[in-house]
C-alpha cells in the first residue's frame, strides 16, 4: 500500500537523521522563545500560574512537533534511476517527484549555519519551471557533493533541450 510513493523497483536512500536534529533545534528555539515570552508576559500581567501553564503548553508543543519532525524526516527519501531522480517525502501531504536528469538546468547545494554545525546539506535540482520541487535536505556533505557532481554529469550527458 505504501509503495505508491516509493515504487520498489528502485533502491531508496533515506536522508540523515541529523535532519530531524536540526529541525528539532529550530523548533526548540521557536517554542523556547514563545514559551519564555508567554511566561514573562502572563506572569507579570495576570499571575505566574498562567505563565507556567503557557510554558507547559510550549513544552508540549515542542514534544508534539518533535515527534512529527521525526516522522517527517523518516519519510524523506530519494532514488536515482537510470534516467530520473525520484524524491519522495511527506506524511500528511505526500509527494513524489520524478525529474528526468535531462531536464536539469542547474543544481544547488546549500547549507545554513545550523545545518553546517550538524554536518548536513540540501541539494536542490532546478528545471526550467519553478513548479519542480526536487529538493533533498539532510544529506551528508560528501553525499551532497557526490550527488551534485553526478546530477550535473548526467544532466549534461542527457540534456534534452527545451
Amino acid at each position: 500500500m505504501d509503495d505508491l510513493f516509493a515504487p520498489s523497483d528502485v533502491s531508496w536512500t533515506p536522508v540523515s537523521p541529523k535532519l530531524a536534529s536540526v529541525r528539532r533545534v529550530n523548533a526548540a528555539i521557536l517554542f523556547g522563545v514563545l514559551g519564555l515570552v508567554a511566561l514573562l508576559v502572563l506572569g507579570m500581567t495576570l499571575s505566574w500560574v498562567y505563565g507556567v501553564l503557557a510554558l507547559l503548553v510550549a513544552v508540549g508543543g515542542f514534544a508534539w512537533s518533535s515527534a512529527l519532525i521525526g516522522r517527517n524526516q523518516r519519510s524523506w527519501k530519494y532514488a536515482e534511476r537510470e534516467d530520473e531522480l525520484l524524491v519522495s517525502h511527506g506524511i500528511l501531504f505526500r509527494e513524489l517527484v520524478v525529474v528526468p536528469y535531462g531536464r536539469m538546468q542547474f543544481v544547488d547545494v546549500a547549507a545554513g549555519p545550523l545545518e553546517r554545525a550538524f554536518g548536513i546539506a540540501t541539494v536542490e535540482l532546478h528545471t526550467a519551471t519553478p513548479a519542480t520541487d526536487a529538493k533533498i535536505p539532510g544529506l551528508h556533505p560528501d553525499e551532497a557533493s557526490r550527488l551534485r557532481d553526478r546530477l550535473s554529469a548526467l544532466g549534461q550527458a542527457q540534456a534534452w533541450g527545451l
Partner: protein
Amino acid sequence: MTGPVPGPSGQTTVPELQGERLHPLTPFVKGWGYFVVAAVALVNNEGLRSNLELAGLGLIAVLVGGILLGALSWWYTKWQLTDEAIRVDSGFLFRRTRIIRFDRIQTIDVAQPFVARLFGMAELRMDVAGGGKSDGKLSYFTYDEAGKLRSILLLRAKGEQFVEHETYQVEPEPLLVVPTNRLLGATLLSSTVLGSAGGLIWLIVATTVLDFHVGLFAGLPLLLGVVQPIWKQVVGNHGFTLSKTHDGLRTKRGLFDVQRQTVPPGRVQGLLITEPLIWRLIGWSRVELDIAGVAGNRDEGEDDREGAQLLPVGDRAEVAGVLARVLPGLDLSRIEMHQAPERVKWLRPIGWRYLAYGADAQVLVTVRGWVSRRTSIVLHHKTQSVRLQQGPLQRRLGLANVHVDTPLGPTDAVAVHRDQFEAAALLQAQADRAREASRTASAPAAVHTQPKPPSPDGSSSSEASPADDSSAT
C-alpha cells in the same frame, strides 16, 4: 534541409549601411508628449496674453532647446552593420557605443507604438540574451525599412534562412481574423465581467432603491472589473489576426499599440484552452500557449510573461484548426478521456464530473473546472518533471493528484483526484512517455527550426539554438 550556404555576401546585395542615421522624425515621435505639453503651455500661456514677454520667451526657449536637444541626439545617433554585429553609436556629450553581436540576438520584433504608427514608423526590438528591456531597442525607422533591417539581421543571426526576406514586409495571408464584435461579446459574457457587473447592479439597486448604504467605495473595484477586461480585450486584441509565415504562426493584435508575436513551432511547450461557463453554451473558447524563452524572460508586457495568446476567442472549428496548426496530428476528440472516480464528489460536489485526463502518443490532456473549464495540453517531450501528490483527505478516499510540470506559462496540467493506483501508474507512464518522446523528438524536431551544426559538447539533441537555452534558465 538546406544545401551548402551560398554565403551571405551572395545574397545581401543590400550594401553595408555605413553609419546610417535614424528617421529624421525620430526626435518628434520620441518626445511628442513634451512637444504637446510645450505647445499647449505656449497657447494657453498667461504670460503671452498679458504680454509678459519674458515668460513667453522662456517657453519658446525651452521649446527650441528641446527641439535642438532632440535633433542633436538624433544627429549623433548612428547605427551600422559590421561583419558580426550591429553597432549603435549615440550621445553627443557622453558618447556611447553599443555592439550587439548577431549570434546573441534571440528574436527581433518590429513594434509600432501609437504615435509612431501615425507617422508610419516602427522601432526594432532585439531581444538579447540576458539583456534588459531597452538594451536592444533601435527607434525609429519607416516601417518598410524596419522590416528590411529585421530581415537582414535575422539572416545574419540565424544564418541560412533566406526565404524570410520576403515574409516580413508583406503582411502574410491571414488564416483567421477575430471580429471585434465577437471580442466584445465574448468579453461581456466572460465570468469576471458578468460577476463584476452583477455586483455593480446589486450595489446600485441596494443604494438607490433599498436605501441600503453599502458604501460606494465597493463600486470602484467592481467598475474596474467590468471596464478593465473589456478594455484589455477589445482594445488590446482588436483585429486579432493569425497568420502563417515561414518561421511559424504570427499573431497581430491591438488597436493603438500593434503587437506582433511569432510562435516558432518547435518552441511550443503547452496549450491551455479556457471555456468560461457561458462561452461553453455558445461553443467559444480561448487558446493560450506556453513558449520557451518568452515567458519570464521578456519584460515588455504582461502578455509576454503570461505566454502567448493564440486565439482570444474562437468557435470550435477555429480552435480545432488552430490546434492542428500548432501541433500537427493532434485531434482532441480522438483522445480517450478518463473520468475521475465518483467518490471525488465528496471533495468536489459539482466539479468532479468535469475532471478528466487523457493521453496519446504526443500529448497529455487534462480537463477541470465547471465555472471556467480549463483544458491543458502538454507535450510529452516538453515535460519538465512529474509529481504525485496526496493530501490527508485524498488519502482517506484513496485519491491522488498527478502534476505534469511545464516551463512558466498559462498551462497547468494536473490530473486532479485520480484513484491513487491509477495515479501512480500514470506517473510512471508519463515519466516513460516523456523519456521516449524526448528521445524520438530530438531528431525530427529540427525540421521546423533552422538547421544548425551539432554542438561541440555533444548535446545536439536540443532543438533550440544554444542562445535559446540560456534564455530559459
